[in-house]
């Protein structure tokens, strides 16, 4: 897909990670100026240097000050924000346990980043976006676990469900101002993390991977580029009447029960 994003400024959080990098590149390829926002300075700077018109911003989305500072840096360089992609998030790969054993500190760390962080980043980016008065786009990267719950990762599941419903309330609040908010719910996507988890030598879930893939209509994990394609569409002028929608890009995982 090729769309017209010339003159648009997009801020992508978690943009040093695999999915964030793919999103940033796709937006850049279609003419947007892109802010590579990440807590990982080295990764953000290295990736921004590969794009024709991009800047790195070190943002810890769980910090209000950091989110606001990142938006201020963006405005200093580009003067506006048109598209916010809330992609940054974390899960626990260590504590895969039931809620009765789930450590409070880990619960707080995950929900602080995944849910509070999305609020803090949106709150900061909306200040200029609303003031610009020209509308805008917010694309929240949720997860299929926000649509269909899973065991052993209760804070991630709760935060992603929160993101999905927050997307709808943001859509209702911001729609009259022409700011459209939608969510993408990725299924299992092949990134560094899932590759080592499912397929790596140390992947303790490797034995279950084949069984899991049999429960997906498309029978394979998705790619970061497939998520990026959906983000590109929702950022495009043609998606101007799509608001408050949650699109699962999940190989059919949530289509139904595949036993």
């Amino acid at each position, binding site marked *: *897909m*090729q*769309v017209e994003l010339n003159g648009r400024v997009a801020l992508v959080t978690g943009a040093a990670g695999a999915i964030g990098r793919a999103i940033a590149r796709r937006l850049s390829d279609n003419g947007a100026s892109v802010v590579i926002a990440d807590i990982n300075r080295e990764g953000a700077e290295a990736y921004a240097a590969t794009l024709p018109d991009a800047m790195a911003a070190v943002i810890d989305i769980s910090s209000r000050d950091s989110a606001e500072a990142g938006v201020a840096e963006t405005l200093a360089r580009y003067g506006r924000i048109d598209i916010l992609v809330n992609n940054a998030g974390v899960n626990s790969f260590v504590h895969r346990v039931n809620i009765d054993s789930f450590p409070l500190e880990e619960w707080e760390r995950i929900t602080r980043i995944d849910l509070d962080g999305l609020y803090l980043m949106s709150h900061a980016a909306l200040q200029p976006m609303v003031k610009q008065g020209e509308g805008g786009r917010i694309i929240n990267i949720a997860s299929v676990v926000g649509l269909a719950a899973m065991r052993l990762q209760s804070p991630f599941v709760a935060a992603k469900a929160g993101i999905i419903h927050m*997307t*709808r*309330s943001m*859509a*209702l*609040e*911001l*729609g*009259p101002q*022409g700011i*459209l908010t939608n969510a993408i719910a990725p*299924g299992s996507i092949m990134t560094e993390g899932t590759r080592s988890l499912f397929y790596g030598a140390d992947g303790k879930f490797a034995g279950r991977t084949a069984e899991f893939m049999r429960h*997906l*209509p*498309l*029978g*394979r994990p*998705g*790619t970061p*580029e*497939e*998520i990026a*394609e*959906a983000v590109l*569409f929702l950022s*495009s*002028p*043609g*998606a*101007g*009447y*799509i*608001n*408050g*929608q949650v*699109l*699962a*890009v*999940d*190989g*059919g995982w*949530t*289509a*139904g029960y*595949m036993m």
Partner: protein
Amino acid sequence: MQIELQNTFVELRGEQNPVTAAILDALRRNGATVGAVAPVPDILIVSLPLLPVAGNEPAPHLQAAREAGEAMFARGSGRILFLVSAAAGMPMRRHAEFSVAMAGVLATVRTMAMQLGPAVLVNALGVGAIGEALVAGDAAMLGHASVKRPGTVAEVADTALFFCDPLNSYTTGQLLSVDGGWSAGYGRNF
């Protein structure tokens, strides 16, 4: 929006209206060949009735879609896009039968996605208040969208292109509505 559809055969089944005309135009502009010229199309657009009037039964269209889906599955590739009312995801009080029918179409989309994967991708595009005369259901109800204008046929056509985009290859069994936020929730200010 541009996508790459050279050597792609597209067929439309079901109702023809300004939305389907815009979609077929957009597909042609992107290189697709439209019409019943291939034994099994690469992309099948199934256009369901957009207005809740008696006699607008989706059943014959669903049967045709299932048959085409099986042929695509046997060949090993294909895409099916159902054009439905946004009421598929949100029933409307004064249109019970229409809402039930649309929900049934959505269940068909989801089960077909499971049965026909990984060869065939099956999705639905929910149409909200589009244009002035053409509305996918009840104009008064669908007018309660947070985006304070009706959508355009071009916006529906671009969304259809997204579902036909060769690079959008991991989306199946999904409903994406072009409804300005109508199905997102209640838009009251208290």
